Every structure is written in C-alpha cells, then in structure tokens.
C-alpha cells in the first residue's frame, strides 16, 4: 500500500524516475552483451533478433523504450527544476514528462507491429 504522505504527483514522478532508472541499469549489461555478439557470433545475434520478432518480446521492447523515454523526460524535468529559475509549475512539468514518454514509446510500438 502506498502510504498517505506519498500520494501526490511529485512523489510519483520520483518513483517513476527511480524505477525506470533501475530497470534501464539492469537491462544495459544484457543489451550491450547482445550487441557485442555482432563481432563474436553474428549467427547468434541473428537468431536472437529473429527471436525478438515475436509479439511478447515486442511488448517487452516497448516497455524498455517506455522506460528510456520516461527516464529521459523525467530527467529533463529534474534538470529544469534544478538549473532553470524556479517556475513553480512542477506538477504540469511532471505530467508533460509522462505524456512525452507515452508519445515516443507509443510511436515505437506503432512502428514495431
């Protein structure tokens, strides 16, 4: 259960940024390892890419792009809050970050299917 003092937009924006960052950091080693197969075992990479064509993997990929987009826009929001003169419009910035992330990852999904 989410404790009462956490039920406000900025706290959710924080949690989204943390979880997306953690997800990306854990995915990164796998991603880089698979890419390096291009050098060591091109056939394995192709087999992997063929496997990545099935819909469940597509959905997982959408998830990763979503994480990246969420983290990017959430990060832009933080940089703006910390380094630009304070505007006081934090809540709309958080909402805009989420909307932008959906837009980018949504277009990825549309292209992918």
């Amino acid at each position, binding site marked *: 259960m989410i404790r*009462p*003092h*956490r039920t*406000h937009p900025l706290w959710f924006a*924080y949690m989204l940024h943390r979880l997306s960052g953690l997800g990306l950091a854990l995915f990164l080693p796998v991603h880089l390892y698979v890419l390096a197969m291009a050098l060591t075992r091109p056939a394995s990479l192709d087999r992997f890419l063929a496997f990545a064509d099935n819909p469940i993997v597509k959905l997982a990929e959408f998830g990763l792009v979503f994480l990246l987009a969420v983290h990017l826009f959430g990060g832009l929001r933080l940089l703006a*809050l910390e*380094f630009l003169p304070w505007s006081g419009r934090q809540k709309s910035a958080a909402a805009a970050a989420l909307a932008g992330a959906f837009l980018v990852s949504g277009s990825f999904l549309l292209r992918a299917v």
Partner: protein
Amino acid sequence: MYFHNPLKNDRCAVSEEDILEVSVWRGTGDTGEYETFQVPARESQTVLDVVTWIQQQIDPSLSYRYACRVGMCGSCAMMVNGEPRWTCRTHVKKVTRDGALQIGPLRNLPTIKDLAADMDPFFDKWIAAGGVHTPSRSRAEPIAEVSPEDPGRVEANKGIECINCSVCYAACDTVANTPDYLGPAALQRAWTLYNDSKVEDRQAVLDAVSKNNGCHNCHTQGSCTQYCPNELDPLSAIAGLKRASAKSFLFKSKEDRQ
C-alpha cells in the same frame, strides 16, 4: 452514551455517530502500540483538542507536546492518519477517515514517550547545515542597509517564516532512507542565510550543505512543500542550493573556495 463535557461542567447526551474512534501511540522509545480511545466529536475541534481531551479526561499519563495552540511555536506536530500535521491547526473533520483518527509521534525522529518525539537530531542538523548566523559586521559598525526589493532578500523572505515544527522532516522519504541527510528544514534555513547579504561567509554555507549528507541527496519528492503547514517551499530552497553549489563548482577554482 454519556460523556463528561468539560466546557459545560455537566453531563450531556452524545449520540453514537458523535463518537470519534481515536487510536493513539503509547510507549517509550522503540516499543509501544496503538491504544484506542472514544472521544466525543465536536462541531469545531482540532486534533490537539482531541489529544488534550484524552489526557485530561481519560489518561493523565498521556505524554505530548504543545505550547501556543495557534500555529506559532511549532511544537505540536504529530502523525495524523499517516500524515504529518501541526495538530493545533488541523481540524478533525478535515482529516478523519470514517470517523477514525490515528495519532502517532512524528516520523523520522526517535520517540521519547507516546506522542512526544525527540527533536534533538532535527535541531542538530539545523546547526550542521550552517544554520547559525555569522554576521559580517560587529555591533560597533553601522547596520548594513538591505533593500526589501533586493533579489536575495526577496528569496530569503520566502523561507524565514519556518516555525521548526519538523513536519517537512517527517514527510521526507530521503530522510527516512538516508538518516544522516540534513533534511528540508535545515536546508531551507541554509538557503535563507546564503541569500542574506549580512552573513559573513556565504560560501561556507554552501560548503556545509555540499557534503555527503547535504542538499544533493534530495530526490525532489516534494513532500516537504506538500505538507509545510506555513505553505513554505523547502523544495525550491533546496533546488536553489543545488543551483548555487553547481555554479560555484563550475565557475570557481579551488583557491576561491578555500
């Protein structure tokens, strides 16, 4: 059901729906549990009124802290239904859930007994954040004139109405996760000093909040600003400290900083 009414000094009838179910934290130090009391509901009543009623009518051994009762002194903050509140100015009707109240000692601080939290760590951090005013002039010199329109003064003014109630400190998850973290109140105090032209060494204030326990731990969760009963904005103050320290990191050489 009959309850003693301290205002009328006689017994008055109270119907079933006029009863508040109030569970109050009882215990010393780390151990304790919630104890439930039934308190008559009033048309106009603060959470502090409820606690006081329990202490005066049911259990005189209930420990809690308050002084002014009008939102000036900052001593009566408690957790009310999981949220930090200044109890003297929190109306019961605004915070009850299904006629129930849960009242506990402030989060992120050690508990002395019942509802009284140990405020020492809170004030120690106030000092650690450079919260002591070090004047730039002695009393023999004329008073420095500060224009109310001066941008630094305007910025400092936003934070000086802090009453040290520790509501922001109790609301902050970063304090909960990193117990050494100075916390929103102390950092906001540092931000007001950094913007005060009468402070002798303002870089020293920045240095004090740039250590491992300082402002850079803040994750912009914003619970401090969300809960500040005086509607101050510690979140922006901390962002200001981050900005100022980043500037001093990028544009000043090591020699300047020493």
